[in-house]
């Protein structure tokens, strides 16, 4: 930044600013002429969509915070005041509540795209790791946000999830007390969750900045997974991708708006319209849908690990579940170092393609298991699915590294695009 040659702008006002702080030069370089592979499909829209969702969440969230009272006795009431008496409060809250879901939908598709087309591979490892970090921060933020209305699911969700940390040996109980700010989920918990829920989005913005910075250093991957070689392989970001991203964004917004305005409670749980009551436990405590796969992994570990035929236990079931849940995300961080196959895109990796699509199907099955009571048939199913989740990373990918044949790749993006076009017009 700042160094390097700078071209003069014709507009004197812009030139005046740019010669002192080259912000227009930077925008021109990073978003104007930025060379972008010309063969993106619509999966490449979801980064921009996620960015817009983050902005929507921050803006609606700040306005909601102006009307919300973070106190155990008043939080539920203040949310209802927002819904009933604040001008367009219902709209703000429904956009914020459904916006969380649609932020996760965008990010899950974005993650899937990264996995399918091998976007995490060399030289994009740090880009990927920053992305997983954003995902982790989002999970923490969303969890704490769900606690704020102080309904039954808020309260009991907070109780279940914070209690997980008590499984950590030695320091677990102290961590839980610190999270609670006392000896149970109470007003102090609500207060600190509100403070952190307000803070975290800005941490996310900072990591998103690093994520985009890293992207602009290494450049975008593309559906073929081969690097652009000549100018013919790329297009300037503007107007080609600014236009395509805006169109994709609007299409996404249509679905979002349908949920926010016509079925605003479809993705929520009715129990959260019952004020929190520490004396009454809901029949089934379930987190929001976007946590269900991880919740299923948590509950799948129903057995202690220890020395066989003795009473020695290394890892009680609860700790096992917590480790499995955090491990499932830790593996995402490690993905660039596990998958060493030289080919990026699943288009040219038929074996990996099958394994990955099964992984996605398996994630949906885990999601279904997470929403069901942990009994009967659902327990072995979630155990099997949890096994496949881990096997994908720890068994299948290492085997594919060695065994999956390396297919011939197209020699350039331009050539592949022209060939495809010829085929289509013939």
């Amino acid at each position: 930044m700042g160094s390097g040659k700078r071209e003069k702008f014709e507009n004197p006002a812009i030139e005046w600013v740019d010669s002192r702080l080259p912000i227009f030069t930077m925008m021109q370089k990073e978003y104007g002429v930025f060379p972008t592979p010309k063969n993106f499909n619509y999966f490449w829209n979801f980064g921009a969509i996620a960015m817009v969702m983050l902005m929507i969440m921050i803006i609606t969230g700040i306005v909601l915070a102006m009307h919300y009272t973070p106190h155990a006795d008043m939080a539920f009431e203040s949310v209802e005041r927002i819904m009933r008496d604040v001008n367009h409060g219902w709209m703000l809250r429904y956009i914020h509540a459904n916006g969380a879901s649609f932020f996760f939908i965008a990010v899950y598709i974005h993650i899937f795209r990264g996995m399918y087309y091998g976007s995490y591979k060399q030289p994009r490892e740090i880009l990927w790791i920053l992305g997983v970090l954003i995902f982790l921060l989002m999970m923490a933020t969303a969890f704490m946000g769900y606690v704020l209305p102080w309904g039954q699911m808020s309260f009991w969700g907070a109780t279940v999830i914070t209690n997980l940390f008590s499984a950590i040996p030695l320091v677990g109980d102290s961590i839980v007390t610190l999270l609670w700010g006392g000896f149970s989920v109470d007003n102090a918990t609500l207060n600190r969750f509100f403070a952190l829920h307000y803070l975290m989005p800005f941490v996310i913005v900072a990591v998103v900045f690093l994520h985009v910075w890293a992207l602009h250093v290494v450049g975008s991957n593309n559906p073929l997974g081969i690097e652009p070689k000549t100018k013919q392989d790329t297009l300037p970001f503007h107007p080609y991708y600014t236009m395509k991203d805006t169109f994709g964004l609007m299409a996404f917004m249509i679905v979002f708006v349908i949920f926010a305005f016509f079925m605003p409670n479809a993705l929520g749980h009715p129990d959260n319209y019952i004020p929190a009551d520490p004396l009454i436990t809901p029949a089934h405590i379930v987190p929001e849908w976007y946590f269900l796969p991880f919740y299923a992994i948590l509950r799948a570990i129903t057995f202690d690990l220890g020395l066989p035929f003795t009473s020695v236990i290394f890892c009680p079931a609860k700790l096992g579940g917590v480790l499995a849940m955090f491990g499932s995300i830790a593996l995402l961080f490690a993905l660039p170092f596990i998958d060493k196959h030289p080919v990026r895109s699943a288009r040219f990796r038929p074996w990996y393609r099958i394994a990955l699509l099964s992984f996605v199907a398996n994630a949906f099955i885990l999601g279904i298991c997470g929403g069901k009571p942990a009994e009967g048939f659902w327990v072995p199913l979630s155990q099997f699915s949890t096994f496949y989740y881990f096997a994908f990373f720890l068994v299948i990918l290492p085997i594919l590294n060695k065994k999956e044949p390396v297919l011939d790749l197209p020699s350039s993006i331009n050539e592949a695009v022209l060939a495809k076009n010829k085929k289509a017009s013939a």
Partner: protein
Amino acid sequence: MKLIITLLVLMMPVSVLAAGDAPTPHKQEWNFNGPFGTFDRGALQRGFQVYKQVCSACHSMNHVSYRNLSALGYSEAQVKAIASEYTVMDGPNDEGEMFERPAKPSDRFKNPYTNDQQARYVNNGALPVDLSLIAKARVGGADYIYALMTGYKDAPEGETLGTGQYWNKYMAGHKIAMAPPLADDVVAYEDGSPTTLDQYAKDVSEFLMWTAEPHMEIRKRTGVKAVLFLLIFAGLLYTVKRKIWANVKGH
């Protein structure tokens, strides 16, 4: 890809968790269903009458004020008259005394009990829930309320009910502490609607949907505008996008 879509479709009913062993309430034909649905003002007024004359004997409505009733089609004078039927505690006054006065439109619906302890004491230990949000706080919403109101049956053989318990087909666990609140001819309607249990149950369910979601009509109207705008805007963007991309070889 197809597999994923199939699984997505399979997941849909999963989010609707069945409550206990109670059957799923049947879907009713509500006036407020669908993207253009509105509340039926007549049904809301009748439902309010049922709430006022029956439910409000035990159930509070803490999030709703008398002024909100103007949305049911009542005039300002009518709302004032309805509010003034109730006496509420106010104060302290300049002499430090609490005093009683007729309710004003700005007051919340009067709670039938002074506190939860009193409510429990009077009702065999059971606390009648606040009804403001009940239509959103139960799986099935208005369908569930209607089903519950009409779901009282004699307990099947072998089922024993405790004192103050009743058997209801749609209650989770089937045992409910609320006596059957509605029966034919308990409320005298003025608009000639049938004074049947079925009609009462429908009207009060619609009224409770309104108390839970008073801004539903404006929400849907705004949604229609937003979707129309986005459709047109997205269409325009797509045309521009196609035009811009037309000169790119291979697209």
